[in-house]
C-alpha cells in the first residue's frame, strides 16, 4: 500500500502526515508513506486545496485533516471522507 501526503510543507500538512503514521502504526499495517512537496507533482492529482491524502494513487481527502478514526477507515478502504 502506498500513501501519499500532498502538501508544500505547511503545518497542517505535517499534521496530516502524523495522523497517517499514527493510524498505520496502530493498525499494524505496512505502508509506504511519501510526503509529496513538489508542486508539479501535486498538481498532477488535480487537487486545488492542500493538504491532500492519496492512497494507492487515488485522492481520498483534499483540504482537510480526517480524524484518526476516519483515517483508519480510509486506509482499510471502508469509506471515503
Amino acid at each position, binding site marked *: 500500500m502506498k500513501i501519499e501526503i500532498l*502538501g*508544500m510543507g*505547511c*503545518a*497542517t*500538512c505535517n*499534521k*496530516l502526515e502524523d*495522523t497517517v503514521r499514527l493510524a498505520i502504526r496502530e493498525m499494524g499495517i505496512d505502508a509506504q508513506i511519501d510526503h509529496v512537496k513538489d*508542486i*508539479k507533482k*501535486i*498538481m*498532477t*492529482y*488535480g*487537487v*486545488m*486545496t*492542500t*493538504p491532500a491524502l492519496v492512497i494507492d494513487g487515488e*485522492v481520498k481527502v*483534499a*483540504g*482537510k*485533516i*480526517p*480524524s*484518526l*478514526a*476516519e483515517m483508519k477507515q480510509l486506509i482499510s478502504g471502508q469509506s*471515503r*471522507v
Partner: protein
Amino acid sequence: MAECCATDNGNKKKINYYIPFLLIPFAVLIYIFLEQGVDFLVYGILQLDRSAHLTEAIRFFLYDTPKVFILLTVIVFVVGIIRSYFSPEKTRKALEGKPLFAGNIMAASLGILTPFCTCSAIPLFIGFVESGIPLGVTFSFLVAAPMINEVALVLLFGLFGWKTALLYASTGLLIAIVSGWVIGRLKLERFVEEWVYEIKAGDFQMEERKVTFNDRIQAGYTAVVDIVSKVWIYIVAGIAVGAAVHGYVPENFMASIMGKEVWWSVPLAVLIGVPLYSNAAGIIPILQALLEKGASLGTALAFMMSVIGLSLPEMIILKKVIKLPLIIIFVSVVATGIMIVGFLFNLIY
C-alpha cells in the same frame, strides 16, 4: 487568511444541529441587555467612580468583549454554513469561460465565499490558470479572498456600526474587481512562471458524499471552534488596548498624524500596512483606538485593508508561481486601490 484551512473536525464531538438554534435567543438577549448589565455591574455593584479614567476603561472592556464575541460566534457560524456550499473546485468551474469584466465581478464575489487559505494559494492559482481562467480574473479572486474577511466584518459592525462594515465590504469588493481587471488588461501572462502553463493537472473529481444539512451545521460549528480558538486572544488584547486608549490617551491625540487634514496619512498608512501581517481580529480593536482619538476613517480603513489584504507571506508564496514584476504590479495596483478608497472616505466623512 490567518485562519488556515484544514481542520480536523472528526476528533471533536459531533453536536446536534438544534443546539446552535437553541442558543441564538440567549445570545440575542445578552446582546440587548449587555449595556445595562455592564453599567449595573460597574456603577451599581462595584461602585466605581463615574468620572475616573479607569472606570471608563473597565466599562469599555466589559461591554465590548462579550459584544464582539457574541457577534463573532454568530457570524462565523453562519459563514461556516454558507461556505460549506462552496469549494475551490466549484468556483473554478463557475469561472471557466467567463469574459474579463463579468469574470472579475464573479471571481471577487466568489473569493469572499469560497473557503480559501494562503497555504493553498499555489495549487489554487495553478488550478485556475491551467483551466484557462484569465490571469486578471484569478487575481480578482486572490485579492478578494483575504481582503474581505468575516472576522473583520463582524468587528467593524460591532464596533463602528453597519455603515462602516458595509463600506468596507463594498469597497473591498470594488478594489478586487478593478485591480483584477487592470491586471487582466495589462496582459502580464509572460510574468507567470513558464512551468505553470506546462503542468497537466489531473482532472480529479472527488466523489461527492451526500452532504446533509446536519453536516453543514457541523461545518459552521467547526468554523466557530476553529476561528474563535485562534483569534480570541488577539481580540481580548486588542479590546484591552482599545480600553486603555479610551480611558487615558487624550482626545484627538492621533488627529495631527492620522487626521483627514493630513493628506499623506493615507499613503503612509498603506506603506506601513502592506508589509505588516496580522489577522483582522488583531488589527481592528487597535483601529478603534486610533479612530476614537481622532484618526480619520479613511486612513484607518486603508491601514486595515493593507494589513489584511496584502501580506508579505502571501507574496513569498506567490513568488513560486509568478515572477517579481507581476508581484510588484499586483501589490502596487491593489495598494493604489486601497489608497483611493482611503482618500474617498476622508473626503466623504
